[in-house]
């Protein structure tokens, strides 16, 4: 699978997770209609988090305990669509020389989706291409329009402090990231100006001028998700409204009328010059905002307390993953369906396995007989129960590479109990740090091949295309791809 395809899959999975959270947020937002808008605003944080971060922490309070999602889930990303969907088999070179094979095989691409006959994979490749083109287009457009705006604002003239005035804007705008400046149109009435400045200064104080571009970047990554466009719009509105409320809290109720008429007068001037540029601060949603301002009351203490509790709980619930319920990974007893599949696998392995790496622990004495019987379905239960079975192997610390980000790696798979080692090629994209064996199996294993004495035979997955590999195949470790010489 290509790097791009993997990236796209990660994004799609995050998008689906974020969509579930977004629906939850929109529902909770309805309940908080009467509460100060700062609460609705804060609620968007988990959505943003889910959009940009594939990892999260586990908690029993997770929102995902409520919705039963049909997804494979590790301690980091929810996975709704497996990256190996429809990949048939990894190409492999078989020269019956173990060490050569492994070196040669890792140099091969891992099941190129475009070469695969499977339409799913081809679609995937096309879609990821469309996705990345969309991202590039939107990104270029935003950067160009940001640079253009900057250019226009360059000649704005100083009023005081960080406030500049210019005839290039029709409404007040905050621009800049590190040292944000406020730009106001010319000839604003003094009363309007004081309200506008208070509003924009509040934005800057609350770092909204950083939050909005960040949210917009996330939106660009997830541009194919219409729900996220809705979220962005709702989030912007909540941001503006809670900013309005914060200004009113400071200025007092008497400012209500003046403040909303200032809003209106700037809305009238607006010509849409910056409307398309989400990086600048436009005044939008004026009607709803004025309504909100006129309705604004300082909330009662208990109301605040309830809202704070509810929002904290919601944020945690939306951000956390549910704790893993799966059994110990790799345990033979778990492998019910896997065994059946294993039975379908070609007649099995012989002790004359290919070149065994020197660091492998010698197979137990019983290994030969187990290896031979493993292929026959009748003996499964005995195998599973056999006391002589070795415990699931620990990840070999000398092979394990922590904090590797991408590249091609060789996965060493130990086959229990008969064949000590197998080699699997793999392309990894996501960080493989601290993954459990189960996660390696479900996410990163494309194919395992077994040497049956004469030829290499692909071992089928336990549950069709999306399933895992039978858990008799213990995972031993992972190391960087050797240079093929």
């Amino acid at each position, binding site marked *: 699978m290509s790097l791009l395809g993997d990236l796209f899959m990660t994004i799609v999975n995050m998008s689906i997770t974020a969509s579930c959270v977004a629906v939850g947020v929109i529902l909770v937002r309805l309940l908080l209609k009467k509460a100060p808008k700062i609460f609705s605003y804060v609620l968007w944080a988990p959505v943003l988090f889910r959009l940009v971060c594939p990892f999260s922490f586990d908690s029993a309070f997770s929102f995902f305990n409520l919705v039963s999602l049909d997804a494979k889930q590790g301690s980091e990303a929810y996975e709704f669509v497996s990256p190996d969907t429809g990949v048939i088999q990894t190409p492999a070179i078989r020269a019956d020389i173990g060490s050569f094979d492994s070196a040669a095989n890792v140099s091969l691409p891992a099941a190129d989706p475009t070469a695969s006959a499977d339409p799913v994979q081809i679609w995937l490749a096309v879609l990821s291409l469309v996705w990345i083109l969309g991202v590039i287009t939107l990104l270029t457009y935003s950067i160009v329009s940001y640079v253009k705006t900057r250019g226009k604002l*360059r*000649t*704005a*003239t*100083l009023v005081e402090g960080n406030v*500049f*005035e*210019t*005839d290039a804007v029709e409404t007040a705008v905050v621009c800049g990231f590190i040292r944000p400046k406020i730009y106001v149109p010319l000839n604003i009435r003094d009363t309007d100006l004081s309200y506008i400045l208070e509003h924009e200064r509040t934005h800057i104080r609350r770092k909204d001028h950083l939050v909005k571009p960040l949210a917009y970047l996330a939106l660009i990554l997830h541009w194919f998700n219409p729900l996220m466009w809705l979220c962005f719009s709702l989030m912007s509105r909540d941001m503006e409204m809670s900013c309005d409320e914060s200004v009113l809290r400071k200025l007092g109720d008497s400012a209500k009328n003046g403040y909303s008429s200032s809003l209106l007068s700037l809305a009238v001037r607006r010509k849409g010059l910056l409307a398309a540029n989400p990086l600048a601060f436009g005044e939008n949603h004026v009607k709803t905002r004025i309504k909100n301002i006129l309705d604004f009351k300082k909330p009662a203490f208990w109301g605040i307390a309830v809202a704070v509790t509810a929002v904290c709980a919601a944020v945690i619930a939306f951000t956390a993953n549910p704790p893993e319920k799966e059994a110990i990974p790799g345990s033979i007893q778990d492998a019910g369906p896997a065994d059946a599949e294993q039975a379908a696998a070609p007649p099995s392995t012989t002790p004359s396995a290919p070149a065994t790496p020197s660091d492998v622990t010698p197979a137990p004495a019983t290994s030969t007989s187990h290896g031979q019987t493993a292929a026959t379905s009748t003996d499964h239960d005995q195998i599973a129960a056999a006391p002589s079975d070795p415990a699931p192997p620990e990840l070999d610390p000398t092979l394990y590479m922590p904090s590797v980000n991408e590249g091609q790696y060789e996965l060493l798979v130990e086959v229990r109990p008969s064949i000590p080692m197998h080699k699997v090629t793999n392309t990894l994209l996501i960080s493989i740090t601290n993954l459990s064996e189960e996660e390696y199996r479900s996410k990163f294993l494309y194919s395992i091949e077994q040497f049956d004495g004469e030829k290499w035979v692909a071992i089928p997955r336990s549950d069709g295309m999306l399933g895992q590999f039978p858990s008799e195949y213990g995972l031993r470790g992972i190391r960087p791809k050797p240079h093929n010489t």
Partner: protein
Amino acid sequence: MEKYKLFDAEYKFVSIIWDNEPINSTELVKICAEKLGWKKSTTYTVLKKLCGRGILQNRDATVTALVKREDVQRYESRAVLEKTFDGSLPKFLTAFLSGRKLSEQEAEELKRIIEEAVK
């Protein structure tokens, strides 16, 4: 006439030059940084643009204005007259003076200006 059309920032910039000309360009950068909050590069960009339009002149790092303040003001006031009052001076005066009392001195001055214009 379009030559005299100045944006707000340009007008403020040229005003500084009218007040100080002839002025050394380094000195100009200093004043612009202080009064307009401009960076050196912004000052030079605008200077170059206005020189290109024949409004300013920068010779041996000395900046002078090629147009008079009165010319620009005349252009601006006519533009307002055309745009907002259909080019009618009485309409403009009516709107300008509505709800506002002239002082004796202002009235005398206006009368004098009108008489001079009629001659």
